[in-house]
């Protein structure tokens, strides 16, 4: 792995602002980005990534490779929770194991975006349909996560609203705000590109030019929030911290193998690895809070946000890039 690659990632504005957020917490500064400002950036990033993905998806079309890649991504997000669960069950109860497993099956949009920005800096192209894969990887993980709880014998407390749980789970899996905004913006991007192309240029300053700076600003907040999780981590213990580093590495490896089988070009392969390796701290925690309230949010959020997210952002992306270059031929 070339040092320049690592340095370029480490010293890019998004990663540095993430580090600044971490430092602010470590030195005990009162720097905070008060609610709901982080939500503004989070909504903006989903909208912009979806819109741009939709525009590019229209240009690339829905050919067989696109469809097989998306299908593979969805499969990945259903499989990862299964084997993660088996690992986690060695030390945790069913509820926590299932919730963490679901988290790792799903994806982190900000990790994806950071990887995209990194590709932009290194000049490696990638396809817009990867955003569609991103959008469709949250729902399967959520469903598998709850299946794991339901099928584990004798552990479920009775929910006061018996019966309606499945409906509200599917609802949460497919219609939670981040999936809806991402898929909606994707469709809008495609429609505008197809039928109202003069609108593209007018959206560009907002969804395009502003994007990188807004990502950096948001990562400042993510750094603060991730660092605040360090206390929880200590309670979580070495097992979970180890899981939060090793499982992404393993998933990235599987992702690389799948990319190679699918014949993805380098840029798309990197994104596929990042999708596989990343863990959700947006849609999944909210869904788990609702459907598995017995699981402790401090565990599944801390591992995903406090360990895996910074690991991927700082070490993972350039590492996966080096792996891609070893395995996938440049085009």
């Amino acid at each position: 792995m070339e040092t320049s690659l690592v340095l370029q990632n480490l010293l890019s504005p998004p990663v540095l602002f993430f580090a600044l957020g971490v430092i602010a917490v470590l030195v005990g500064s009162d720097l905070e980005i008060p609610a709901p400002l982080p939500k503004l950036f989070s909504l903006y990033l989903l909208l912009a990534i979806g819109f741009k993905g939709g525009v590019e998806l229209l240009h690339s079309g829905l050919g067989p490779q696109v469809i097989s890649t998306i299908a593979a991504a969805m499969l990945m997000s259903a499989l990862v929770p299964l084997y993660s669960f088996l690992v986690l069950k060695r030390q945790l109860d069913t509820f926590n194991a299932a919730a963490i497993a679901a988290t790792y099956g799903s994806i982190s949009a900000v990790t994806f975006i950071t990887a995209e920005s990194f590709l932009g800096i290194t000049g490696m192209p990638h396809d817009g349909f990867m955003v569609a894969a991103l959008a469709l990887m949250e729902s399967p993980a959520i469903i598998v996560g709850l299946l794991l709880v339901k099928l584990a014998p004798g552990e479920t407390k009775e929910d006061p609203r018996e019966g309606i749980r499945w409906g509200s789970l599917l609802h949460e899996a497919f219609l939670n705000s981040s999936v809806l905004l991402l898929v909606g913006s994707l469709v809008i991007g495609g429609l505008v590109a197809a039928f109202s192309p003069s609108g593209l240029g007018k959206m560009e300053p907002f969804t395009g030019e502003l994007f990188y700076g807004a990502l950096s600003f948001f990562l400042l907040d993510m750094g603060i929030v991730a660092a605040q999780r360090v206390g929880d981590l200590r309670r979580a213990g070495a097992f979970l911290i180890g899981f939060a580093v090793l499982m992404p590495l393993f998933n990235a490896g599987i992702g690389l193998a799948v990319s190679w089988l699918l014949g993805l070009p380098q840029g798309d392969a990197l994104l596929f690895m990042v999708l596989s390796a990343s863990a959700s701290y947006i849609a999944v925690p909210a869904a788990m809070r609702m459907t598995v309230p017995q699981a402790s949010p401090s565990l599944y959020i801390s591992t995903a946000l406090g360990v895996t997210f910074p690991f991927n952002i700082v070490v993972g992306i350039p590492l996966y890039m080096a792996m891609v270059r070893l395995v996938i031929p440049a085009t």
Partner: protein
Amino acid sequence: MHRLDLICSERELERVVHLIDAAGAPGYSVVRHVTGRGPHGSVSESMEFSGLGANVHVIVFCQSEALESLRQGLRPILEYYGGVGFVSQAEPL
């Protein structure tokens, strides 16, 4: 009259409001963005961007009958999802 103070996750708000309406209480008020700590750990606003949400504080001024009916509906929710409910006396101004 009674004053009910209810603090729970905002993810349960919709269901709580349905119960209040069903109990025939004359009204209610909701304060969002409440943080805190209880037996299930602490709740902050720092994950608000993720859709996880923080707590809500719901205040209901009502008569005994509504309170009784609310009690039946709310207890299982508080037990299952966490949160606290307290009752005190209050007279209309």
